């Protein structure tokens, strides 16, 4: 009764939405390879190599903008949506098919989102950390040699972490393509 009175204010019935979602899940299952569907169930997205741009891959799900990776690095996202409401798994499928079969139209229709600005390297961050900590580090002198040593270690720790991260990244690239890299 309430539903009949309020009509469209309530939106589609929850049971109808559930049924639509289940159909869309089933269609997605029929439209992906076994590996792709397993990846979707595990990670919530499907990764598709770009047909037109070597080294580029798209990570697609049904709710966020399509993330774009080049050589495994996130470079931006494409915001593209259906004009009418369709269930999330159907959105994923439509995006995937458009990328594979009509990539130029996909890129033309979507809005390109740049990643937020961040410093290109660790140097600005290290400088900032040093500037913020220096009065406190100078104060450690009063604790004697151990204080100076602890201060030096604290001062160097961001550099050590950055060095370790870079070494790990180099090792991953050496062993094989990182998760986001295209074939």
């Amino acid at each position, binding site marked *: 009764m309430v539903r009949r009175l309020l009509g469209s204010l309530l939106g589609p019935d929850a049971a109808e939405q559930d049924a*639509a979602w289940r159909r869309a899940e089933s269609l997605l299952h029929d439209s992906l390879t076994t590996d792709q569907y397993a990846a979707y169930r595990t990670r919530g997205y499907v990764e598709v190599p770009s047909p037109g741009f070597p080294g580029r891959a798209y990570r697609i799900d049904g709710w966020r903008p399509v993330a774009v990776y080049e050589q495994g690095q996130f470079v931006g996202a494409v915001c593209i949506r259906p004009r009418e409401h369709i269930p999330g798994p159907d959105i994923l499928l439509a995006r995937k098919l458009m990328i*594979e079969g009509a990539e130029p139209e*996909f890129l033309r229709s979507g809005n390109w989102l740049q990643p937020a600005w961040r410093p290109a390297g660790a140097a600005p961050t290290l400088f900032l950390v040093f500037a913020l900590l220096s009065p406190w580090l100078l104060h450690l002198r009063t604790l004697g040699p151990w204080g100076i040593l602890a201060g030096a270690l604290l001062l160097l720790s961001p550099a050590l972490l950055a060095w370790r991260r870079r070494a790990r990244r180099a090792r991953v690239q050496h062993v094989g393509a990182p998760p986001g890299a295209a074939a």
Partner: protein
Amino acid sequence: MGVLRILGPSGDTRVAWDPADLHEVDDVRRRFDEIIRDGYLVFELDPETKEGSQVRTFEPGVRELRAFRPLAGG
């Protein structure tokens, strides 16, 4: 058997045909042309890789087609 699945708000609509049945093929061709006129995008799925390729004309021999309204910038 071929199947065309048209994405919509309450899930997909399924249109199946037997390529040997000319009457059925004609019906599906009419439906196909209708949705193309309405601006739908139609993709054929590769049976092995499941990769999509866009099609604009109906071939009765295809196995799997998916159709949906064009996506737009969000």
